[in-house]
């Protein structure tokens, strides 16, 4: 029988595993199973250019339909409901059973629910899929006021995009500052300032208790009773990994599906990659579940190699980006555990600066706003573990010699 690889979940990680299997000369069938009924598409533009109307829907596809045909990757619509490891079969929602030799779990993540009363009213949205964005774009067409719940990257990007469409936008953040879990206070303050300059009101310490309205949402009710008028609401308070499939099959899960440096799960026939996976990262000495396209790609490449009996370790330094207005943020590394910050540039006045994070004198991460050179410099410096000179970090955009 021809060997068969099943890839469950057809998004960034799944598409890369399928492509990687062919690059590593997988000698058999490849079936890419996804429950979104679309070619694998890019998620980052959903809150950025695509929401703002600057990108056509065709441009969302990660690869054209031809790619899958030419590479002999079979795409199958549907949700995998269970894995029978003893029989080496999966069962789909429509009852079909498929045997497998290898599986890659690329099931990603879903929005964390707020679970507030009134959440089911019309006009209350989450933002994860292209279908979500289509609905939001329809709501945005009539203009009015959008209330965004959650001041993380997705919430803030959404705010910027809707502002661009001419809507009135309010962001409600329950914590004391936006981006609180991911950046230094200076960076949070910077984004708060820019959003204010662009006409977005950010309210911190604002815990949402309920949504009110008659069929359609009209108001957001805060703890304490204050009511904020809304034409529609978008909730962006983080995601939860889709791990039910693995848990039910008895595969080890701890926050995400646990994987090693080669994307192997506790079952030798099964790998995992992307937002659903939790990776033991030697660099950080702990298990981390990353939610980013570059990490999904890196893990997917390792998974594809493993499935073909080859070795490719997950090693690349994590990085991330975010676009808001004219701000291009590029983040190198993870800042967890930093004990010192060096800022180059003036985040209280300018729109270009870098915030470096150090631990015990060593550079571990950098948030680079409109500073691509600093980003590349940081990525290289952190990856190589080279010593850095603090005074040099402070000098603006300086690795090419000139201060700007």
């Amino acid at each position: 029988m021809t060997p068969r690889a099943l890839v469950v979940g057809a998004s960034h990680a799944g598409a890369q595993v399928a492509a990687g299997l062919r690059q590593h000369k997988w000698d058999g069938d490849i079936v890419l199973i996804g429950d979104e009924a679309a070619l694998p598409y890019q998620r980052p533009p959903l809150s950025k250019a695509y929401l703002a109307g600057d990108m056509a829907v065709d441009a969302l596809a990660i690869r054209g339909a031809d790619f899958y045909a030419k590479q002999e990757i079979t795409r199958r619509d549907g949700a995998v409901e269970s894995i029978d490891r003893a029989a080496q079969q999966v069962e789909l929602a429509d009852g079909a059973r498929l045997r497998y030799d290898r599986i890659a779990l690329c099931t990603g993540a879903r929005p964390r629910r707020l679970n507030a009363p009134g959440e089911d009213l019309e006009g209350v949205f989450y933002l994860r899929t292209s279908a979500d964005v289509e609905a939001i774009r329809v709501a945005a067409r009539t203009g009015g006021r959008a209330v965004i719940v959650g001041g993380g990257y997705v919430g803030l990007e959404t705010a910027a995009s809707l502002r661009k469409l001419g809507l009135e936008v309010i962001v409600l953040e329950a914590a004391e500052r936006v981006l609180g879990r991911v950046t230094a206070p200076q960076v949070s303050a910077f984004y708060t300032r820019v959003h204010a300059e662009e006409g977005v009101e950010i309210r911190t310490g604002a815990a949402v208790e309920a949504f009110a309205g008659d069929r359609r949402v009209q108001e957001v009710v805060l703890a304490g009773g204050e009511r904020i008028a809304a034409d529609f609401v978008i909730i962006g308070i983080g995601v939860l990994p889709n791990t039910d499939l693995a848990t039910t099959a008895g595969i080890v899960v701890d926050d995400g599906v646990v994987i090693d440096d080669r994307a192997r799960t506790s079952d030798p026939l099964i790998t995992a990659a992307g937002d659903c996976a939790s990776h033991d990262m030697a660099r950080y000495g702990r298990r981390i579940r990353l939610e980013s396209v570059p990490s999904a790609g890196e893990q997917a490449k390792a998974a594809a190699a493993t499935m073909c009996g080859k070795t490719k370790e997950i090693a690349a330094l994590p990085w991330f980006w975010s676009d808001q207005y004219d701000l291009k943020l590029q983040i190198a590394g993870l800042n967890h555990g930093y004990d010192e910050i060096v800022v180059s540039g003036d985040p209280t006045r300018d729109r270009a600066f870098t915030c470096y994070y150090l631990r015990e004198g060593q550079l571990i991460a950098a948030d680079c706003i409109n500073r691509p050179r600093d980003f590349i410099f940081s990525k290289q410096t952190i990856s190589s573990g080279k010593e850095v000179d603090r005074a040099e970090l402070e000098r603006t955009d300086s690795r090419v010699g000139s201060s700007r």
Partner: protein
Amino acid sequence: MSSVTFVTHEGESHEVPLDDDRSLMQIAVDNGVPGIDGDCGGEAACGTCHIVVDPAWTDTVGMSTEVEEEMLAMNPERHPTSRLACQMTAAEKWDGLVVQVPEFQM
């Protein structure tokens, strides 16, 4: 049909159809050329689409733009004719173009 050839670090040639009006990064990704990931989807934010243009072709395809320069300047694999493939929109007159894919992407 017009074509473009990507030569990998190992010296493998990938001759693929040249699709007008698509970026060279998208063409590479659509055809599974190894070594070009296009992680950021073409926003000049990741540098994983770095290629080196055969010097004979620079007059036709042009040199790096300012946006690309910002991403390429600090890259150790940088060559005088380096470009970010996502910032290059393919044109009919590029038929026969040859570009190198560096050993390491950012």
